């Protein structure tokens, strides 16, 4: 039984950042844009949280500044895609590059070296009342409510309908007085908030450390979860959870099978499962490929 609790804790630890990233991807996805900048914005969130904790010694200040900076970068991404009509895939990769290069640059110009920074404390933990789960951060416990509230927002509210209209049929959105461009801006801002939480949880949830390039594809995996989950908040959260279960199982297998299979090859498991997930989603839906531009341009 104790083993089971440990397993669940490991899944929640590795799954929560992925789920937050997937939620950010979902809301932007529903507004009609493929959010490939998740990776970059996540690493910015992680970096700002840790630097904030180290410099100001206050968790609240750190997380707030992470949220603000992530929202600013998201707005930048929205601006380039929406207003400058740039290709959203390349822009997403550019944002990822800005995240990885920019955080390395910031760390090196503030601390003078690229070594990992460790913070004295991280996100507040839930405490001893939760028994074996006492080491988990509060963001893990907020996560189900975040999924639920995003579900309400996207599928049970007027705003959600308008957002979906902006993504699927901008003309319809415009005909009821909703500006698709503004809808996307709001989606990107909410996405920035979730990316900041994802980064914060990844860096300060259990390790309290920021290392170069520590996101290591989790943002892209979160994005794949969006596709696997069909753009539905709950489905995508489950897809993200599934990817993290696979990666935890991969790590467990290293302990038991380490002598038979190289652990580097076992580390491939989550990426392979991601590809399989996308493939299944494509089989189910016919296709998963994007238009290279927001649908705004298609309906003209």
């Amino acid at each position, binding site marked *: 039984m104790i083993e089971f609790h440990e397993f669940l804790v490991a899944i929640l630890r590795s799954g929560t950042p992925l789920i937050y990233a997937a939620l950010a991807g979902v809301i932007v996805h529903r507004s009609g844009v493929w959010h490939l900048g998740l990776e970059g914005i996540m690493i910015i969130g992680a970096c700002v949280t840790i630097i904030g904790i180290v410099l100001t010694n206050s968790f609240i200040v750190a997380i707030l500044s992470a949220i603000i900076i992530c929202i600013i970068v998201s707005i930048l991404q929205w601006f380039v895609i929406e207003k*400058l009509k*740039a290709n959203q895939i390349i822009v997403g*990769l550019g944002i990822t590059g800005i995240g990885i*290069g920019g955080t390395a640059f910031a760390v090196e110009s503030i601390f003078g070296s690229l070594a990992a920074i460790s913070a004295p404390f991280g996100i507040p933990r839930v405490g001893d009342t939760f028994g074996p789960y006492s080491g988990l951060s509060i963001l893990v416990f907020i996560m189900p409510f975040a999924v639920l509230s995003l579900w309400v927002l996207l599928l049970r509210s007027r705003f959600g309908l308008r957002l979906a209209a902006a993504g699927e049929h901008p003309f319809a959105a415009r005909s009821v007085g909703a500006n698709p461009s503004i809808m996307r801006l709001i989606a990107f801002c909410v996405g920035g908030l979730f990316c900041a939480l994802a980064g914060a949880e990844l860096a300060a949830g259990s390790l309290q450390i920021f290392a170069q390039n520590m996101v290591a594809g989790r943002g*892209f995996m979160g994005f794949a979860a969006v596709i696997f989950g069909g753009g539905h908040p709950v489905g995508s959260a489950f897809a993200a959870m599934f990817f993290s279960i696979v990666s935890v199982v991969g790590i467990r297998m290293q302990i038991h099978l380490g002598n038979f299979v190289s652990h580097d*090859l076992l580390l491939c498991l989550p990426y392979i499962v*991601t590809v399989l997930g996308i493939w299944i989603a494509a089989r189910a839906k016919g296709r998963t*490929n994007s238009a290279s531009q927001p649908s705004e341009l298609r309906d003209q």
Partner: protein
Amino acid sequence: MNGKIEIIIRPLAFILLATILCGIIFEIAGFSAILMFNSILDGAFLGSRSLEKSLRWALPLFITAVGVGISFRCGFFNIGAQGQFYMGSVCAVYVTEYMSGANAVIVIPLGMIAGMTGGALWSLWPGYLKLRYGVDEVITTLMSNFIAGLILVYVTSGPLKDQSGSGQQASTKILPSEFRISDASGVSLTIILITISVGITGWLIINRTSFGTLSSLAGRNPTMLKYQGGKIWQLGLVSFIISGMLAGLSGSIELFGPSGRVVSGFLPTHGFTAILVALVASYAVIGTAFSALFFGGLFSAALFLPIFTGLPTSAIDLFNAIIALLITARITLGKKFLRNRWSHSHD
């Protein structure tokens, strides 16, 4: 003529814009932007022997970027150049391992063919998934990069690990000198000849074959292609194979040329930079040569940045990323202004 001038001026304008943005960021961070750009220019192009050092990075970038351009031109965002590059070098290193006794004249071409095959196969499965099942190639090629990176780590720290190494960086054994086609400088007649022949072949494929014409039609207007009788899955598969082949070739050149061995996680930004090179050149081969030289120069200058200006090497990554962010933007200020006014009256 107007379009041709625009193709040259547009990327230059974006590079200038990125330079200004970066300069502002560097000034805010407390570095002297003027000093920094001076030393980049010096390190990349003007200093003594700096052009040779730039070429060392520009040649493999050019080879990979020609391939990236061919698949982007066809409308497929094959961003797996990094993984194909790694798989090329891994396949080539296996050939050298199993044929270490054979003559170099046999081993080197075989190694390169193996590298090209490895790269092509590594690009073939995302391509097949895309064309057969409609699985988006952006995610699959991204994931293929991570998988190839881990395979590289596995090969260099497992079966082919150089046991005599210091253990700092996992790598394979250094090739004996008769298997090398250049010294550590990375510029030799053989490599230059291979690069030029890749360039000429790429140019011929794009400009003088029906594949080139139809594939650029496929990228711009798939519906039109259908009525022209082009087969998208044929074109797509070939463009995936060519781009993987060239990335793999560039990986094997890295092994036989400047590096002489395969190091775990080497050149981690190669694929991304090659994509940038292709985008800046708008996928044209001649433009690719110039933009490869530019980005190769930047890379070579970046290695010396910390020494001269105290600026971290990641500054160049930031600069490249800002170019990537802006390069596909359609900013035509005058026209945009006009169009907005028109479209308002139509709304």
